[in-house]
């Protein structure tokens, strides 16, 4: 029984009307709509499955495509490297010199220089005997400053070759003073004044 009062209260006209009012909304729908709703949900799930499956397959295809592309690029790189080696071949270079009649000669002793890239640790381990050539020494010192910056560049000159590996050399500039800092004494106060006096 509805206990509402007022002009908007539902007016029950019959038992059927009462029954209708008392049943939930969902149950009032005709059966066809329920069936349609059920099928719609099933269709929705199926569509979602198909869509996600397609996305998954597309992703797999993209992965395969990318892998193929990577392999292609890798193969191209290998081919370019091989081609570079073929061009570097001495017989090929000689043939080009002859073909274009280039006025090139093999370098004389002392004309050949070689630059090798070393790590800073390697650079610090190699000794270099600076010859009496001041130009070479300056060059060597300049290179040493670069090596101190961390690139570890070394230069060989046509000077005294090293024992085992003549292509590697690191200049070690001669220090003009002996720093107090080399000892364990801290650099302040009396030690600092002594150091300044030595300079």
């Amino acid at each position, binding site marked *: 029984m509805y206990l509402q009062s007022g002009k908007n209260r539902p007016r029950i006209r019959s038992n059927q009307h009462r029954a209708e009012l008392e049943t939930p909304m969902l149950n009032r729908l005709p059966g066809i709509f329920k069936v349609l709703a059920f099928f719609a949900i099933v269709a929705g799930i199926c569509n979602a499955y198909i869509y996600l499956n397609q996305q998954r*397959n597309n992703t797999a295809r993209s992965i395969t495509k990318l892998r193929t592309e990577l392999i292609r690029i890798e193969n191209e790189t290998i081919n370019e*490297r*091989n081609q570079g080696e073929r061009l570097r071949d001495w017989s090929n270079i000689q043939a080009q010199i002859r073909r274009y009649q280039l006025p090139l000669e093999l370098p004389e002793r002392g004309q*050949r220089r070689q630059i090798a890239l070393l790590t800073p640790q390697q650079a610090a381990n190699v000794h270099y005997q600076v010859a009496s050539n001041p130009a070479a020494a300056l060059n060597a010192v300049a290179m040493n400053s670069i090596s101190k910056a961390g690139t570890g560049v070394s230069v060989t000159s046509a000077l005294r070759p090293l024992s085992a590996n003549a292509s590697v050399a690191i200049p070690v500039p001669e220090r003009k003073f002996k720093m107090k800092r080399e000892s364990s004494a801290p650099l302040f106060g009396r030690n600092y004044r002594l150091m300044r006096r030595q300079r």
Partner: protein
Amino acid sequence: MAITGDRIRLRIILLASIVMIPMAGLLIWRFYVVQVQKHDYYSAEAKKRYVAVRKTRNRRGEIFDTNGYLLVANAPAMDITCAPCNLKDDQQRQRLAFLMKKFFGHDFRRSYQKLAPEVPKRDPKGKVVTDESGNAVMRPNQYVMIARGVALKTAQAFREQATSKTNHLGKALYFTNTSGRTYPKGRMLANVLGYINVENDVEIPQGGLEKQLASQISPQEGRMVYERNRDGSPLLYGFQEIHAGRDGQNVYLTIDEPIQAILEEELDAGFEKWHPVAAYAAIADPRTGNILALAQRPNFDPNDRSTYRIEAIGTRIAMDAFGPGSVAKPFTVGKALDCGVVRPETIIDCEKGVWFYGGKRMTDTHAYGVRTVSGVIQKSSNIGTAKIAVMLGDARVREAFTNFGFGTRTGLPLAGEHPGLIHPLKKWDKLTGTRVAIGYSVQITPLQLLRGYCGLANNGLMPQLRLVDRTEDPETGKVTKIPMKPYVRAFRRPETAKELMKMMVTVTQEGGTAQKAAIPGYHVAGKTGTARKYITGVGYSMHDYYASFIGFVPAENPRLVMVVNFDSPRGATYGGTVAGPVFRRTMERVLKHLNVQPDPALLPPEKSK
């Protein structure tokens, strides 16, 4: 009594039950058989369809020189195959045959016949299957190899043309990634490196280091087992089992490419000038035994199959053993010095070029009279050396050679290396000692000579020759250095090598037999050899000789030892004339390359300024 509705219904139900219950029972039984009893079988069958196995091809290891310059490389390539049954019509068949002619030089008619859409069916034994009337039964032609190992650029160009709108051949062609070998340096070191044959998609190394180092260079195949979808792509969330393969290890040799190039160039020049049957040369560092260069002629280009000839393939510098002749004399004299039998200034009577001993005659090329031991080496007197051998005794003559490793292999990874031959003492007669002392009645390979001279150059400490310096794992970058083997002490007295070296320096000075091997600015210690060639069934030839020169430079502090040998040169036969200039030209350039300073006192006056 009338049959009521209930009874009819009951009868229908009963009838239906009689039919449906057995059917249901059959279904349940079948369900049990498929899902329970034969579960494993059907599961395996299903897996066969959706589980794929893919083999991953890994890369063969590459070979580099000691500085990392590439000698043998992998070359990505493509195999192009065709399914002629997928060709639409005869026009497509003709277009494809035309493309095969254009890109690969195939004969048009043969290609056209090869692309027949149907071929006769064959039984497992290869016999053609015929029908009742005797006609061959045809089947669709599904596989034809168009080209194998095609370079990527060529394959790409072929693919573009084949799949263009004009040709429409895309559905009938298949492109498979494969890998071949390329040798960027061409003929350089070809005999040592070897080559590869590809059979049924399997790489088979043929000779050289490709074969000897196959266990290190060859890759290990990987396997990937995965669930796939209809397209064949792996399922993202499916089962995957990966057995990772392994790339082959990269190998770094002791060969120095610039030195190798110099040696090959000079050996080519010598080969063209003297037209020998074969020529060998090798350079080594006597302190470490590292072989810096190794060359032989004739050789071949591993990239070009048309250059393969039986006499050119194979590492003959290790396989060919011969009587070395006079280059063996320093070992005899060295042993005599070491044992104190002679001194460098000991006087030997060379009998004016003719000496009878043991009922046989021995001669020298010139009539030498009385010489010091140093002079015997300088002039390469057979009689002088034979007399020293007599003073030494057979056992010590044999020891002079075995101490320097003659008669044993060098242990280098070169297939078919000859161990050489020095007969056991019990087979020696009265004359054998005198003949062995001058390099006859023995067989020695050029590599053994190189090793022996490294021992002479290194103060009597003979190193073991090395060709492989280190290996590298390309995936982890880990480098494994092949360690040096211990030296073999060949001389008891350390002064022996120095004394012998001084004698050998006189060979390249005025009055010596190898003045053409002298290098301005350096003392060169060496020995020439001109040995008659022994022909099986005939004996020692009167016309064919082995012309050799072996030396080390600088003599006081040897950096390089080089052996040069010419087999049957034409136009000249002496080692000093044929092999000496090759030694000089090669060493001049190599010393310049290594920046080994000359002694200013030894330079000609205008050069020393």
